[in-house]
């Protein structure tokens, strides 16, 4: 359906201005979302954004769409439920690493394996920013975080590897210092049918070393520049995801597999929210109990 006005990024502004710290990775994601919506001609009322808790979660106040700000770790199931009920809408979960890799870890892997048709933006800064800078599940030795009074040898979770292993069908890594690439990835992720994950390296400049952006810039390279890389090969993608000396960004893996929603005949006819329920006849059903 054509809308009557021509979209621009500012159509997605609310009356509240973002309150993130200067230099926060959340700005790049916020900006990319607005621009991609315009490019894809998605109008605010056609989008459901679900936010977790923490710094990224306060984004609910700054982006004008249908929005739900939920509890720590629960953005994915809320988004999945909304997406099932209104499957013609675009549904995106935005949530932090403490959220989705911590409290929401179980829901994350099951959303991946069911290939639910939502996009998940993992705002990955390796710390619990709003709680006081504690090391998050994705935090490694490169972070000196608020609560790390001594070095404990634990392995960080690698969201990209985890998503590949769990069966997601679109898996990418972005960097908030590379907005052009982030927009391209986001556009493809939203268009992708099935569960798409973008692990966005979005540094917290408060709780990380002074030159975190410089650190990432030296370490990062784009997968698009590796001509021989085939992103439809799962084993290759997994191997790529394990690279640590230098960090690849871009799309690691993209395949078309059966989408959860497409297997549901009961939403095929029309979205669940469009059914009239005022007088549902259950007499035939009742007869089975006589």
């Amino acid at each position, binding site marked *: 359906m054509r809308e009557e006005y021509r979209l621009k990024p500012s159509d997605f502004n609310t009356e509240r201005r973002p309150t993130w710290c200067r230099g926060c990775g959340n700005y790049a994601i916020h900006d990319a979302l607005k621009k991609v919506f315009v490019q894809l001609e998605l109008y605010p009322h056609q989008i459901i954004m679900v936010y977790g808790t923490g710094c990224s979660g306060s984004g609910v106040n700054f982006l004008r769409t249908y929005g739900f700000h939920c509890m720590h770790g629960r953005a994915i*199931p809320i988004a999945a439920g909304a997406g099932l009920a209104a499957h013609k809408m675009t549904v995106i979960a935005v949530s932090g690493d403490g959220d989705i890799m911590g409290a929401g870890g179980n829901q994350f892997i099951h959303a991946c394996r069911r290939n639910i048709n939502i996009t998940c933006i993992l705002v990955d800064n390796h710390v619990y920013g709003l709680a006081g800078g504690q090391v998050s599940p994705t935090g490694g030795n490169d972070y000196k975080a608020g609560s790390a009074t001594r070095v404990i040898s634990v392995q960080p979770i690698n969201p990209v590897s985890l998503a590949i292993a769990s069966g997601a069908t679109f898996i990418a890594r972005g960097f908030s210092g590379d907005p052009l690439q982030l927009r391209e990835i986001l556009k493809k992720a939203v268009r992708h049918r099935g569960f798409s994950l973008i692990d966005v390296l979005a540094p917290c400049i408060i709780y990380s070393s002074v030159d975190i952006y410089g650190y990432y810039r030296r370490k990062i390279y784009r997968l698009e520049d590796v001509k021989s890389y085939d992103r439809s090969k799962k084993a290759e993608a997994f191997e790529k995801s394990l690279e640590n000396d230098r960090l690849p960004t871009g799309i690691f893996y993209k395949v078309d597999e059966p989408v959860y929603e497409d297997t549901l005949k009961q939403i095929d006819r029309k979205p669940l*929210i469009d*059914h009239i329920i*005022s007088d549902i006849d259950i007499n035939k059903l009742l007869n089975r109990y006589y």
Partner: protein
Amino acid sequence: MKVTNITWRIGGEAGCGIPAAGNIFSRTFSKKGYSVIDHIEYPLLVKGGHSTYISRLNSGEIFSLNRDINILAALDQRTIEMHQDEVIFSGYVIYDGEKYRLKDKVNIRKDINYISVPFQRITAEQGLLNIMISNIALGASLALIDYNVDNAVDTVKDVLSGRERETIEMNSRALEFGYKYIREKLKIKAYELEIVKPDAKLLVTGNDAVFLAGVRSGCKFYAECPAPQSYPIHDSFAAVEDDFNIVARNSEDEIEALNMAIGASFAGVRTMVTTSGAGFSLMGEGLGCAAITETPVVIVLLQRPAPAAGLPTWTEQGDMLFSLYASNGEFPRVVIAPGDPEECFYLTGRAFSIAEKYQIPVIIILDKYLSESHFTFAKFDMKKIKADRESIYLSDRDITGDYFRYNDTGNGISPRPVAGLKKGMHIANSEEHDRYGFSEEDAHNRKRMADKRFRKVGGLLEEIQPPVRYGPVNADMTIWGWGSSKGPVLEAIRILNSQEKKVNFIHFTYLYPFDREIVEKYINESSKNVIVENNKTAQLSKLIALYTGYRIGNKILKYSGRQFLPEEIVESIEKIE
């Protein structure tokens, strides 16, 4: 002997087909107009252990099971040891005398009849499966009641419809062989059951009734994490997904189940989740999220003895106060405890309407006994469940002017749109928020929003059904109870009132909001009070004391994992001075 009531118990190891045989027994009689109540007891085992099914049928009206068994069909020796004391004077025990000699094994009662039917030999000779032993015992039992076995064969065809022809044929044959063995070989007729008008009755469990009301109420999204008590509800929804456009979801945990339901409800459909008490613990967080975002959801809590894993296949009323106070913070909710499957049906319908109109979580408390016991009813009245979509905007035409999601209205209810409307765009915010939904820490706003949410209680109190008084208004003693103990108490007061004592019963279905005025009126009108609850700490008496200051001194409590029998209540009442 002519009788109006038969109580039948079949017992044996899990894996002998006991649930199916019990179901066939109950359904055979409900189809022909008898009142039936049954209950299955089983261990947390796939095979082995001790499993029993008890079914009571009556030519009149009954409210619960009773203690005296007329026929005990014992598929193993353990069943005799455990249950022969329950057999009524001159009652019957059916067992396999070729498998073990009774005299060597158990204390034989002189006042009852032991009848040997060679289950194992018949199974072998007829080429039947071990799982059909229970059908041989069922057939033998029907012969003792002198009941037409063809009716049971018809029920087998019904219950097993869709299965292979051979399976149906073998099950029917097992039934007929058991019947003939008693009838033709032993030539025993024990009971003659009073004949009733053969109008088929509805035979439903609490779970069935919750499911049926869910479909009727327009539930479009259902989720659970598999548990022994809730999976029948899931399976029922899953079987009609395509016919009624419902998504039934098997979640990885109760956290996902409830949060998905909240997400779907936010988008605009009616949703329900079911869980045991342990799973409800995991839902505590989501409950608060539904409350502050003012997102409707119906949660069905199937209690079992706890804490933690407890006794997962047994029954208790232990989670009432928990359901009233679960989750952090203060918010209005509605807690409903139906007393039988009929109340499960109508109150689940009300739960959906109330949840949607008031945009709050509604908790329906059942327990294992109510979930899995069949009860008969003449019919369900569809007019009593209407899915009037109150306080929800279904199209842009419904919205005039600027839209505020959390508008501070007189009754506390702020209508919300289904997702996708152009004019209804909004934020549902689990942080405290202003009328738009934006996060807001302002002190004045916080107070305003908390007041707005609690203003709904006024409207709720006018809509909910107050506790119902059964029995005479003026009584020597008043019993107080809630939920599934309704049946045993009703039977108990029937017995007591047929004797000298005048006893009445106040039964709570709605537990929150608490209707203080009517409860105080009942307290003033009662002389001696006694609480009857299927738990250790008398939770209803605590709730009554909390709201009225009145403490009920006499307590009849049972917390063995088993439901009350009416006779136990009668005996306990008689001991109270």
